[in-house]
């Protein structure tokens, strides 16, 4: 199968004062893959995906998505194109019900003016909540969910937006081992419809899910390849895998 490029960054850079958080990175993503970005803290992973999702503006460089230049699009416009970002620190509407949380996402992709398409929204919400096994929690305030379920709710919000590219920033952080297994199952299921870009510290999860891995260090991409290539790459081991790989 010929790979179709979904996302491409060309020499994209972000400086914070004197610090080059992302330093002229060329990064590309094929349609349908599950890509993991790994790297030590401060490597620029979150900054890179923030540039892709539009939360941050690049200092220089160019980003294209599905063949179109999106460098100048604002974050809410990129969501309309199908780029969906779920936050590293769980970010939900805590005082609103689970239903309302997901309905907000569903409404964005289904449209709805003054009166909207409530039945279609309700159906989309139901499907998304069923995927993450929260379909019995419609009326519960999101802030009252246990932490692991809040992360799942956030994934459901991402799903309800019907993304082409779903960016997950450290999705398994803070989850119990049992929850991680079902989370991986869920990601694989979503991957049948969307391309997934994953920032993850948990190496077993990365090795299990990712079709390709990109390694970042100090704002640059230092290696990229299939999981077994990355594991064997000496530069990667020196920069990052060294200790944590020994433990795994």
């Amino acid at each position, binding site marked *: 199968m010929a790979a179709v490029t979904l996302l491409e960054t060309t020499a994209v850079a972000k400086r914070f004062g004197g610090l080059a958080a992302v330093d002229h990175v060329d990064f590309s993503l094929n349609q349908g893959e599950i890509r993991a970005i790994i790297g030590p803290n401060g490597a620029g992973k979150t900054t890179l995906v923030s540039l892709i*999702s539009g*939360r941050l503006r690049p200092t220089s460089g160019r980003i294209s998505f599905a063949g179109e230049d999106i460098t100048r699009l*604002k*974050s*809410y*416009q*990129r*969501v*309309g194109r199908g780029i969906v*970002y779920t*936050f590293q620190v769980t*970010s*939900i*509407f*805590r*005082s*609103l019900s689970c*239903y*309302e949380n997901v*309905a*907000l*996402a569903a*409404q*964005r*992709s289904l449209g*709805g*003016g*003054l*009166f*909207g398409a*409530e039945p279609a*929204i*309700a159906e989309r919400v139901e499907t998304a909540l069923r995927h993450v096994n929260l379909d019995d929690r*419609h*009326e519960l305030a999101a802030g009252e969910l246990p932490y692991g379920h809040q992360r799942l709710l956030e994934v459901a*919000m991402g799903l309800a*937006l019907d993304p082409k590219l779903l960016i997950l920033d450290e999705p398994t952080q803070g989850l119990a081992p049992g929850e991680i297994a079902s989370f991986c199952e869920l990601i694989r299921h979503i991957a049948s419809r969307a391309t997934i870009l994953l920032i993850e510290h948990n190496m077993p999860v990365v090795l299990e899910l990712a079709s390709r891995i990109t390694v970042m260090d100090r704002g640059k991409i230092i290696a990229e390849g299939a999981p077994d290539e990355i594991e064997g790459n000496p530069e990667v081991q020196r920069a990052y895998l060294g200790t944590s790989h020994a433990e795994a």
Partner: protein
Amino acid sequence: MSGGGKGGRIAALHLAVIAVLFAAQFLLPAYHHGNVARIMVLTSFAVGYNVLLGYTGLLSLGHAMFFAAGLYGAGLPLYYFEIGALQAFGLGLLASLALALCFGLVALRASGIAFLIVTLMFAQAFFLATLYFNEITLGDQGFVLSEQARTVTLGGVSFSFADPVVKYNAALLLFACCMLGCLALVRSPIGRVLVAIRENEPRTRMLGYNTYVYKLIALVVSGVMAGAAGAGYALLFAYVGSTFATIQYSIYALLWTLLGGVGTVLGPFVGTGLMFYLIDIAGDFTTSYLLVVGVVLLVLILWYPKGLLGSLRARWLPWLP
């Protein structure tokens, strides 16, 4: 939002409030009859205020400006030119709409405290302008509209807003339109986004919403409701003066909304009615009725930040919109 039974109950409650107010005109003694009409017009102002504060989370201290825009927008043409009362009302709405739109385009670039300050400054400038142009507006002395100017002829029958029955029912119509409009808005998809902005604006933006546009919609709806109340006030109560543009009236809108329950559709009515009678009764004992306003504000902020209906909703009535 889900479940038809809940929607039916909500509609029934709000229609019942309107029905009770309609019936009340046959029972109320003349003094209270007039008071309730005034309360309903002022409530429309507070309902508009609540759309912005209660459902979008934007705190304004300049809403008297929109009320006064409606008041002058309707009052000045009536006073100087022989136009119909309904046309004057329409001009009042247009004036507040234009003002809210222009103001929003500028002020919504700020948020939080900065937004608050901008609302305060604009409103102060507006108030000073009504004094500066006192040859036209007659400043804080104001002017009184004649009964003839406040008469509408519909289908060959003429209604004078000086007539208590017409006054009461016109006030009720204005109140019902604003309240039901607010209810429809907050239960619509737009309302859902406004509440999301109130709860977490950055997240709402990352769900793909242009929050600036939604805030602008809320501000315009809010400003037009305040303007409708102002235009209605000019027509029903005949007096137009710059007192209504002072910060005191902006604070009243805030206070009425807080007292009744910020973010509840009926809260502004409860708050306006209570405050009106509280000041009315206090006025019998003391001339410093503003002291009462201050004390109520303090008590609210310290012990009942959710207001009356807000506390009621938190305890017993979670379905209350």
